[in-house]
C-alpha cells in the first residue's frame, strides 16, 4: 500500500508532484499535484497549479483546478480560484470559491470523509460526519385545473433524490419546466 506523504509547512516545491498514496500539503506547491490517493491541503497550504486526486479536502489556498475522482470538499478556510470537478462536491460555509463547479463522473460508494489532522483548537473537519440519509423529494401535486391554460408539466417521477448514493453518476440537475402562462398558486388551507 502506498505511503502517506507530507509537504511540511516550511517547504516550497517548485515543480510537479505525482505518484501513488495520499498527500498532505501544509506548505507551498507551485506546480501540479497528481496523485491517486487522497489530497488534504491544510489551512496554511498554498497551491499554484491543478490538483488531481481521489478525495481532495481543501482548507487552504488553491489557484488551479481541483479534480477529484471521488470527491472535492472545501472547508471553511478554503480559498479557491479554479474549477471543481468530482462526483461529489462539498463547499462549507465560509469557503471562498471562484470558478466552475461540476459534479460529474462515476460516484464510488461513499465513505466517511477523511478528517484533516487536528488543527489549532482541534476542530473537526466540517465534513467529518456520517453521510446523511437520502432525502427523497416528494413529487409535487399535479397542477389543479385553474386559470392556467397549460398545466405545469409535472416534475419527473425520478425527481432527483438528494441521495448521497448514486448508482450511476450524480443525477444531472433537473429544473422542472413551467408551461407558458402558469402563475404561482396561492397556497390555501384545505378545509
Amino acid at each position, binding site marked *: 500500500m*502506498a505511503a502517506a506523504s507530507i509537504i511540511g509547512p516550511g*517547504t516550497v516545491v517548485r515543480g510537479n508532484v505525482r505518484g501513488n498514496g495520499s498527500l498532505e500539503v501544509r506548505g507551498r506547491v507551485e*506546480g501540479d499535484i497528481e496523485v491517486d490517493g487522497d489530497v488534504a491541503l491544510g489551512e496554511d497550504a498554498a497551491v499554484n497549479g491543478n490538483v488531481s486526486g481521489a478525495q481532495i479536502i481543501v482548507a487552504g489556498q488553491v489557484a488551479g483546478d481541483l479534480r477529484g475522482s471521488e470527491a472535492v470538499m472545501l472547508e471553511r478556510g478554503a480559498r479557491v480560484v479554479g474549477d471543481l470537478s468530482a462526483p461529489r462536491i462539498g463547499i462549507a460555509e465560509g469557503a471562498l470559491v471562484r470558478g466552475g463547479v461540476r459534479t460529474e463522473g462515476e460516484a464510488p460508494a461513499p465513505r466517511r470523509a477523511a478528517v484533516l489532522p487536528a488543527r489549532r483548537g482541534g476542530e473537526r473537519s466540517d465534513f467529518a460526519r456520517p453521510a446523511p440519509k437520502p432525502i427523497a423529494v416528494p413529487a409535487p401535486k399535479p397542477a389543479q385545473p385553474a386559470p392556467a391554460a397549460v398545466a405545469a408539466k409535472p416534475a419527473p417521477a425520478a425527481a432527483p433524490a438528494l441521495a448521497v448514493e448514486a448508482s450511476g453518476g450524480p443525477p444531472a440537475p433537473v429544473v422542472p419546466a413551467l408551461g407558458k402562462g402558469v402563475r404561482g398558486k396561492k397556497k390555501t388551507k384545505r378545509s
Partner: protein
Amino acid sequence: MAGTVIGDGLTIDGEVTGDDEVVVHGTVRGTLTTSEAVSVAAGGVVEADVTASSVSVAGHVTGNVTAQDRIDIQAGGRLVGDIKSARFTIADGASFKGSVDMEV
C-alpha cells in the same frame, strides 16, 4: 516528527526548498535545499543537488551534496557526486563515487 516526508510512490520533479526536515522514501529530481536534516531512506532516489544541515543516505543519491554539519552514507546507500561537509562517514557496504571536500 519530520516536516516533509516524500512517501514511497511519490515523485517530485522540481525544486524543493524550505526549512523542514526532509525524509525521502520516493523520488526527488531537481534540487533539494533545506536548512534542516535530509534523510534518504532505503528505496529513496534523489537525482538532485542536495544542500542541507546534515544528510544521511541509505538510498540512492545522484548529485552533489553539501552539508553544514555532516554527511553519512549508510550501508546499502549509494552516492554518486561530490560532497562537501565538515564531517563525513561511509559505512561498510556503502557505495560512493565522487570527490570529498571536508573543508580542510
